């Protein structure tokens, strides 16, 4: 036998490796989303975990085993379960939190696996206890300790536009008026800063640099780095979207909750706005309000101050969507946001 014949297979394998040719056939990769029915719960509440299993082409994958592991703030596992995805790829699991569930961040890890596919994992966070406008507004905003609330104004100055994260542009100053309403409502002196202030914002991502504070941002993600960050990272319960015909508000799972045709919003006589409250991963409690246009953002500020704060106990959920129609409810058709012209909520949730 010739010496060279032994080396040939080895050389061939080396050539294949160098050429990047896989030696085994790659399995298609599963993908799954994982959400909880609310961003926060109280002890004793039932937590619903749900999502969807798809393949690399975003086609639904039924019959995939989805295993769930939920860990408590200290890291200990509090719940393990599995379920099979439905033909449309969806899955849903529920479990009850103990009445004495400790406060803090809980993580729900989900893994999807199915024969013939590479498995995939994802996770989401929820918080105990439950956070609502009703249980936060007074202590978190109105009577919050001095310097414990940070009001982030969206920078308007084109010369600092480069300090905004990608996808965020400079603001109109009307967004400052909306911020003024909660700023004025705070009893003590608080912190205010621009969303381009490197002391208070990670300029690369738009993430706030504060922790354990209340954060207020009254602007949309197109102009406000902080809001953009919270929506991009799916920390906020709601997010903005648009297509060629409409503006939208979606839940972070993609469910559409409100819409308005672009032309109607552009008339500046009608708008839809949100008020939402949530925990971020740095112990901050974050209040965001804005509309599709500046009129809606202004309305969010006025409504927060004039209707929500005086009746805070009635706002027992974390997020609300309202509508403003100029001239409705007996108001004048004058382009100005009168409280009687605000209706809703169109939708609410936690």
């Amino acid at each position, binding site marked *: 036998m010739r010496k060279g014949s032994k080396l040939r297979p080895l050389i061939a394998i080396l050539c294949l490796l160098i050429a990047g040719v896989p030696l085994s056939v790659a399995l298609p990769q599963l993908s799954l989303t994982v959400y909880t029915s609310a961003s926060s719960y109280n002890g004793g509440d039932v937590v619903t975990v749900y999502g969807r299993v798809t393949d690399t082409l975003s086609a639904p994958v039924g019959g995939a085993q989805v295993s769930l592991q939920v860990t408590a703030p200290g890291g200990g596992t509090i719940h393990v379960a599995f379920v099979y995805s439905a033909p449309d790829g969806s899955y849903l699991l529920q479990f009850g939190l103990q009445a004495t569930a400790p406060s803090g961040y809980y993580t729900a890890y989900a893994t999807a696996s199915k024969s013939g596919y590479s498995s995939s994992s994802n996770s989401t966070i929820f918080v105990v206890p439950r956070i609502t406008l009703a249980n936060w507004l007074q202590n978190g905003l109105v009577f919050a300790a001095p310097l414990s609330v940070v009001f982030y104004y969206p920078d308007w100055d084109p010369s600092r536009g480069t300090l905004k994260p990608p996808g965020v542009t400079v603001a*109109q*100053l009307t967004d*400052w*008026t909306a911020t003024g309403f909660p700023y004025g409502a705070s009893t003590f002196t608080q912190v205010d800063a621009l969303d381009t202030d490197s002391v208070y914002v990670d300029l690369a991502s738009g993430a706030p640099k504060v922790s354990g504070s209340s954060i207020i941002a009254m602007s949309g993600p197109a102009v406000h780095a902080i809001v953009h960050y919270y929506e991009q990272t799916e920390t906020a319960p709601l997010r903005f979207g648009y297509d060629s015909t409409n503006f939208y508000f979606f839940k972070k799972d993609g469910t559409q909750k409100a819409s308005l045709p672009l032309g109607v919003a552009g008339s500046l006589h009608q708008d839809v706005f949100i008020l939402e409250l949530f925990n971020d991963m740095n112990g901050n409690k974050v209040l965001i309000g804005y509309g599709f246009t500046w009129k809606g953002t202004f309305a969010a500020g*006025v409504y927060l101050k004039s209707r929500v704060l005086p009746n805070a106990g009635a706002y027992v959920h974390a997020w609300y969507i309202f509508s403003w129609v100029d001239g409705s409810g007996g108001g004048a058709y004058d382009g100005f946001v009168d409280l009687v012209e605000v209706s809703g909520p169109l939708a609410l949730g936690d």
Partner: protein
Amino acid sequence: MRKVEPMKKVLVLVVVVVVVFSGFRPSCATPIGLSSFALVVNASSANVGFLYPDWDPSRAYLKAPGVIVAQLSDWSATGIVYGMERNMPQQQGLDTSLSMVDTSTGAPLVASTIVIFSGPVVHSVVHYYEQNRITPSYFFFDQFTGTFQFRRASDGSIVAAMVVSDVRGGRADLFIVEAFLDASGRTVFIGYGFGWKGTFAAAKTLKDIIYGPNGQNIGLYTKSWYIYSWIDRNNDGFPDTDEIAPVSSGN
């Protein structure tokens, strides 16, 4: 009866002519202490009117003569002051609202206390009060010196001034916060700067310095008007409270 000397007659005539042609009219307002703003914060629902300067060019014809439409930056301050109100809701409207303002003159029609955070160039009601020397002080653009000025309504003397280019540079401003009773007995609070940042700073100053936490400072502000300066010491273009300093005050 003693005859008035001819020279004195001429002098009196000159003074009258100067006064008439300068547009100066004696104030018919009653200065009140800014400390009365505490009553505004605690006013019952619907007893305070917040008037925004209209921004919409399509409604420019509803502005009082000599007043132009506002930039939306002129709205930036009002939210802070409205936010200080303890009892909701209060009245809000535009300076072109036919139910709130006599749009031919800019005179307010609302019976309540009025709060305005905007200057006379863009706000019909502020323009009306200043033109008629009802406010304790008024805005003046001196083309000869290239300065924006606050002048005392009682005698036209300059109280504070800033070079126009400094204001337009966006790194400094002067602003006023003032209170008075108008001839109809309305309590009026006005605040504004030469530029929009001064107007924004005026609202912050009213909340965090003049009123203070839980209103602990407001009792100290017994004069009718207070003028402050803002200088952007940290060069971030944002009016921070520690960059604001008192300049002058009076009645």
